[in-house]
């Protein structure tokens, strides 16, 4: 059974990039364009991993992580934060909220896949 990964980012091109590379490795991908959208699309579904941007409209990444961690179905779901080099403090903030992994933008598809495969078994 293939595993499901959610990508939360307001940039459709980043979503696209992540989606294509993950699908190529056999993952199911759910897209969401911000924290709010993500929460509504999660809806108790089995999601093995969440990849989330930090700066997004409606609900930013940090708030989203905090909210997701409150839900029993996603309490232990691994979360990868997308940050930029200049957002070192965001990595810390994200970690405190519960997103322990991070990928620095801009990233190569292989970097994303490496981070994903460190976190979930195939």
């Amino acid at each position, binding site marked *: 059974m293939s595993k499901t990964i959610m990508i939360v980012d307001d940039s459709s091109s980043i979503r696209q990039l992540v989606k294509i590379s993950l699908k190529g490795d056999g993952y199911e991908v759910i897209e969401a364009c911000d924290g709010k959208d993500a929460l509504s699309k999660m809806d108790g579904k089995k999601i093995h991993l969440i990849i989330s941007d930090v700066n997004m409209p409606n609900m930013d990444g940090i708030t989203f992580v905090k909210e997701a961690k409150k839900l029993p179905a996603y309490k*232990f779901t691994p979360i990868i934060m997308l940050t930029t080099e200049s957002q070192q403090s965001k990595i810390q903030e994200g970690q405190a909220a519960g997103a322990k992994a991070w990928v620095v933008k801009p990233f190569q598809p292989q970097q994303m896949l490496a981070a994903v*495969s*460190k*976190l*979930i*078994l195939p």
Partner: protein
Amino acid sequence: MSLDKEMQELLVNYTIESAELLQVMEEGLMELESIEESEETINAIFRAAHTIKGGAGIFGFEHIVGFTHVVESVLDAMRDGLLKVDSELVAALLPCCDHLGILVREIAKGHTEENSDLTKQSEKIIAGLQPFLDNAEGKQTDSSQVASQSIQVQDETHRVQNIECDNSKSGNWHLFLHFNPDCLRDGMDPLSFILYLTKLGEIIELTTSTQALPSAGEMDPESNYLIFEIVFKSDAEKADIENVFDFVRAGSQIHILPLESKIEYYIDLIDSLESDDMQLGELLIKCGVITRRELEEGLQAQQAKRERQQSQHIGDILIEQQTVQKPIVSAALEKQQRVKESKAIENQSIRVDAGRLDILIDLIGELVIAGASASLRASQTGDMALQEANAAVISLVEEVRDSALQLRMVPIGSTFSRFQRVVRDVSKELGKDIKLHISGADTEIDKSVVEKIGDPLMHLVRNAMDHGIEPAQLRIERDKPAQGNLQLNAYHSSGNIVIEVSDDGRGLDRDKILAKAVERGLIQVGETLSDQEVYSLIFEPGFSTADQISNLSGRGVGMDVVKRNITELRGDIAIDSTPGKGTTLRIYLPLTLAIIDGFLVGVGESSYVIPLDRVVECVALPPNENHDYMELRGEVLPFIRLRQLFNKKATLSKRQNVIVVEHLGVKAGLVVDKLKGELQTVIKPLGKLFGHVQGVGGSTILGSGEVALIIDVPTLLRQQEFASNTH
């Protein structure tokens, strides 16, 4: 050569070497007072003492052997950690160095037998060491207890066990993974990290340890208890393996060690590394056995210990943190030692009479001139092959010149470190607590300059300590640390070597200097001067009278002499001072005194050389410019007409050029008739007869045989400034 003569030469060598070793000892002892990681330094001191003793033994100087032996015993006890290194101990050892120096000098004078006065002194100094020796002996007996305690402490932490298996031979890394207990809750599954690891290499052997799993009642099903040990085979760098665990590093124990069976390999690798005096950590990183992150972590731990007044060698910390095994660290330390020793040998290996070196430099100077002459003739013939051959010769001559000059270059470090003792002694004398910081000790400088810079530096250092740095009480009142800081720094900057003497004392008092200058008639009342101009007043001869020491902020004493010494070296000095914060004196010196790169210009029928490092650019003189200044890119550029300055009457050429020169931020133009291009040239000093001529730094002979004067830009600019000020 007769045996006697041979022995005589050997003896001369021994005394020279001993003097150097004593310098090493003294520097080492001074260092011991200021640093905490002292093992290396103690070793160096010990080796120095040992070598002196050994040499004395060869010549049969029993009194030196006997004396040094006692010193050596104390050093040995320090090395074994039986004696605590403190200022008391250093204070007892310093006189030993001094005394040994006297003993060796006596031998150099030919007094190979000891005399009774010196014997008495020897005995007295040895008596001073006796308490330390007694103390050390007492400790020897209970040192075994200490050792067993420290082992116990180590046992408390979980040590990485060796995985015993036959497969291990084919692996190269040993991973110990105890992920933090919360990792599962964070969505981090150790298993997927381990699976990911297989992308980098092959897991040869894996042991899952369940010993940390508590009883059923206490076990929290959401906590991680499993510990994994892996024998891993991979061509990846250690840093890449380490990166796998980035996300789980916090709170986890993750150790990546070279496999026991690979230790030999790393030891060999370390041995074969071509390395200069690398630091231990860098050495280990270079051979891939630790990562930069691990080193930084180790250094942080070291720093933390230091703050708790403990000291530990970085190698030991890395072993303790299970970053690397002891044999590898030991190999690296040995390597480091060998590098240092081989460097020391290199440093000592050739002694050349300075006089011979001077002859060589002189000859090369002549060669440069002869080369220029040959190339001039060659270019006149129009024979391309000859010109090419000549160009090749010239470029070789330049290389020979550079390496010959290199022979004369010595690091300024030894000059600087001599001041450790000075600062120590003078601060005791003054009752002030002053620490000397040295940086840029590796900066190289012409030996002839080094010899002449010692006195002015001594003056500046003493002045800074005496008048610059306030007494501790006053410093505390001014919210400064009680300990005063003095800094000696050296660096290269655009063709100059810069030596800085800075203190964090009271700074210069502008108003007082002004008042004094008016009183001495150096300036007019109401003259407006920049800070720089005010500060430089203290270099005026009129300022060097004794009564100013107390009421002026110091620094009046003999500063004109300092200035003169430096000017003689074709150098300059500048002051930077902030009231209440401190003063920095910057000495600018030419890299070498013998040869310069110059810019050749023609004025009338004569040629002049302007040192190239002063030249900023060349521009054409605007026609019909009758003022003594012109506009250059929106700025006013004052200029000096060399034609007027040197009183040249020849007819004006149609086109005149301005060479823009700069010194210490001041720019000016020199108006000349002809630009003749760059050249290398040997400076011939002007005879004493012309010592008073201002603005000329020396002379040189051109390829054509013509004599050209070398322009002394700083002096010219100062004259210019003076002239414009009085207008």
